[in-house]
């Protein structure tokens, strides 16, 4: 396996808000359920890029990921693929300053 450049940190992400509701079961007990709503809230999540490829592409992708947050929490991708289609793998936002472990 080749060496990869990792860019990691904490970033904001919009997640759907869940709403709770109760339903009465046949045996008379009220059971709690969760429903996904259309509303979203912004939460901070730890995110990570792991990029491999040629040095030239690595440089370009490292600059690109400066303001590009991965959609998935942990994304391993080749620099070439990321440069071809950045919006497929990430969204534009800023990394947040927190204490993260490697």
């Amino acid at each position, binding site marked *: 396996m080749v060496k990869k450049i990792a860019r990691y940190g904490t970033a904001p992400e919009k997640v759907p808000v869940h709403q709770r509701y109760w339903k009465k079961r046949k045996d008379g007990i009220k059971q709690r359920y969760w429903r996904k709503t259309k509303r979203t809230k912004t939460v901070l999540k730890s995110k990570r890029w792991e990029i491999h490829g040629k040095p030239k592409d690595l440089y370009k992708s490292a600059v690109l990921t400066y303001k590009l947050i991965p959609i998935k929490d942990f994304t391993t991708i080749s620099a070439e693929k990321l440069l071809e289609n950045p919006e497929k793998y990430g969204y534009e936002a*800023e990394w947040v300053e927190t204490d993260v472990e490697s």
Partner: protein
Amino acid sequence: MAMKPNGWKPMLNLKDNSILGISDSESVKLDFDNTRFKTVKYWAFRTMKWFKLKGFIILKSSKNSYHVVFDRRVSWTENMHIVAWVCLLSQHKALTKWFLMQCIKEGSTLRVSAKKEKPEPRIVFRYGSQNNQIAEFLAYRKIVKSIIAKLQRQKELCSPAIKTLT
């Protein structure tokens, strides 16, 4: 999205909050936090001799924090075998935590860029062979460092424009 690789926007935020590092599975790496240099050197020597790892480098990441990279190429299984051996014998809590995180990720990562007030890790000790994994690690480190330097230069170019705007 307006972001394109060949025409990215000028960077207005001057602070980089993310961290750049090098990740792989074939080189043995250790991360000693809150440990004296003498202890780090002792464990680096002991591990190198026991597992015949040929050579190592020690990088100082911050005060009493050191990274160790060994020279011999190993498999991921052997890599984790070695790190687990060091964790068990040294009973180092921070190293054990780091080891568990690397197991989850299935690849070990060491930081190259600066982190908050901590500076970029720098080499403080070399021993033995340096031609295999260490050479590769240092080559990648050079790439990452050049990326950081170029980003820094771009930020400096952007900053006077922002000042004049405000």
